[in-house]
């Protein structure tokens, strides 16, 4: 009986998450309409702009947060995608066993490093370096640029892309490769024309999981990205993200009923929903398109 209860705890946790997020979000949407939250372009939770405004303590248009999150996640995927994929191809197809045995655990270390350390690296090393490099080249790069946070986040998700891709690449059967070699294809032609298409669903799913991880990542952006909600696609500018705003809204003094704190739960609900959809899609892609080899 005890055993059943403990395994039901996982369900209880999910239910708890969904209920608490939904409940607080509904209270938020009583004060601020859903449409303003989802489609509004102005995000100023702290300042009262006009006293007659909805919510009366600021405006809660979350679009700049969504675009900021998307921009930083995109940069991180553009970093981690090629590095992780080519790294996985090299380790699975080209490298000697000794190199593989040394490099693979080293890459796994990247996955085990606490995110606060990446935050330190992004905020104190990478961001100032980019700012100075930008100043040198005459480009204005903000010291809280999306580029710095995105790059370092990309480094963080390299192991997700590389280890999942590595798994699917090595699971492509040898017979496929040998058939290709026997037709005279070079190794790289075999990889790009035979192995990768066969492994594609797994790679797509790895990218989706990496995206989900990037969207939900908190510490790197809290330490390295900005608080100001700018609606821009410029990677050199400072943008803010959903997670940064959740932390910003909930740390420090708080009255629990103000729209300011409740907004954090609405953002959390969006975050939970988006990552859930990405994770489920990732699993679906693998299940649906996986080639069966016997």
């Amino acid at each position, binding site marked *: 009986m005890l055993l059943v209860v403990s*395994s039901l705890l996982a369900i209880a946790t999910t239910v708890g*998450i969904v209920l608490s997020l939904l*409940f607080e979000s509904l209270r938020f949407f009583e004060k601020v309409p859903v449409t303003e939250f989802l489609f509004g372009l102005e995000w100023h939770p702290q300042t009262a702009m006009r006293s007659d405004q909805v919510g009366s303590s600021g405006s809660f248009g979350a679009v700049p947060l969504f675009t900021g999150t998307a921009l930083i996640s995109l940069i991180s995927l553009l970093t981690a995608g*090629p590095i992780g994929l080519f790294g996985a191809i090299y380790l699975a197809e080209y490298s000697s066993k000794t190199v593989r045995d040394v490099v693979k655990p080293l890459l796994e270390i990247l996955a085990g490093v606490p995110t*606060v350390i990446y935050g*330190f690296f992004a905020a104190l090393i990478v961001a100032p370096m980019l700012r100075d490099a930008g100043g040198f080249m005459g480009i204005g790069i903000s010291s809280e640029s999306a580029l710095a946070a995105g790059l370092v986040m990309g*480094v963080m998700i390299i192991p997700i892309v590389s280890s999942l891709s590595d798994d699917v690449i090595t699971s492509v059967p040898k017979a496929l490769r040998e058939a290709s070699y026997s037709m005279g294809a070079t190794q790289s032609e075999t990889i790009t024309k035979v192995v990768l298409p066969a492994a594609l669903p797994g790679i797509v799913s790895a990218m989706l999981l990496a995206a989900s991880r990037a969207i939900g990542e*908190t510490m790197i952006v*809290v330490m390295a990205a900005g608080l100001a909600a700018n609606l821009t696609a410029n990677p050199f500018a400072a943008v803010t993200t959903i997670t940064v705003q959740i932390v910003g809204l909930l740390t420090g003094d708080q009255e629990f009923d103000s729209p300011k704190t409740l907004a954090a739960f609405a953002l959390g609900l969006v975050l939970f929903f988006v990552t859930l959809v990405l994770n489920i899609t990732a699993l679906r892609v693998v299940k649906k398109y996986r080639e069966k080899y016997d």
Partner: protein
Amino acid sequence: MTDSPAGSSLDTKAAAYAALLRKRYGAETRFRLYGILATATALFFLGAMLISIIVIGHSAFRQTFMKLDIFFDPQVISANGKTDLNTLRTADYSALVKSSLRELFPAVKDRREQRQLFGLISRGAEDSLREQVMANPGLIGSKSEVWLMASDDMDLFIKGDITRDMPEAERQLSNLQMDWAGQIAARDDAELRFNTAFLTTGDSREPETAGIWGAVTGSFYTLVVTMVLSFPIGIMAALYLQEFAPKNTITELIEVNINNLAAVPSIVFGLLGLAVFLNFLQMPRSAPLVGGIVLALMTLPTIIIAARAAILAIPPSIREAALAVGASPMQTALHHVIPLAAPGMMTGAILGMARALGETAPLLMIGMVAFIADVPEGIFDPATVLPVQIYLWADSPERAFVAKMAAGIMVLLTFLIVMNLIAVLLRRRFEQKW
């Protein structure tokens, strides 16, 4: 009818094929190079990160101390001649430090300049004098050489992080202070010592007296709560799902659920903790208890998945043998399956704990981010944890905190390396092939 046209066309064809082959081989080499480049880039980032942490952080383990002649003036310590504990505790020890500094630089008369002079020594110095006098009241009335902690700015100067080339407005020490500090250094009255305070005290507003011990204890209490909750629950859940559960929609739902829960962003668990444990159940803010519960919920899926894999690895023959000699299914599970799966479960649990130790975001949500100078003494005391402490120092404007932060990261990484090593050793030691 000559074969020269055919031959020449053959030649051009051969040449074209050779060119094509060269191109294909070129593409092959390039492709291979991309792979090497990608792997090297990833390793470069790892190396750059670790090296920058060590380069920045190592200086925080050493701290500048200054030699001062302190006269333990009975007039200042206890004007009425009493030496009971309360008098000694409340005495103004900063006056002793100040008069000693005044003696050292008698030319400094201006009040503003004097205040600058006092800025060279840490506020922690008076605490150190207080401790000495309380431990040995006989010191009162005597005069002795005492090594006292220098301020963070003086410390940066001695370590060479502040130089005269910087414009005066941008550095923490004024020209005057630089002169004095230079004189002190020239007399060998300042030296770098191992910074024991960093490893033994709690947080502080002053960089030179801020320590990591409070955060280490906070992390310890939090992880104890996490461990006590998530380890037994995780193992029981794994045991049920793997050994007893019927194959039906409910168990399938639980499985999908556990896998999804493992991928939920950690900050969402923090929101859950805030809404349910703090606001609904009214548990104390900032306490390791709540932090531990939240982290337990977060690591539970990881532990369940690892424990299930460990149970799955045990061959059915073991169970059948136990059942054949008359053991009940529960006895089989408790007496045979669990002991054999224990090393695998432990490995999973340690890795889950390592992840919980490095987690920051959910703890920010439940108020473990407050400034706490005292070392916590239990799971109900307000506390902070190692990664949150690092984050807090990152937010501080003073430059000396940067080194503290990198040093804090080094401490955190040390714990993580030790935990991972234990997990690897456990796996090596008890790994069985069936």
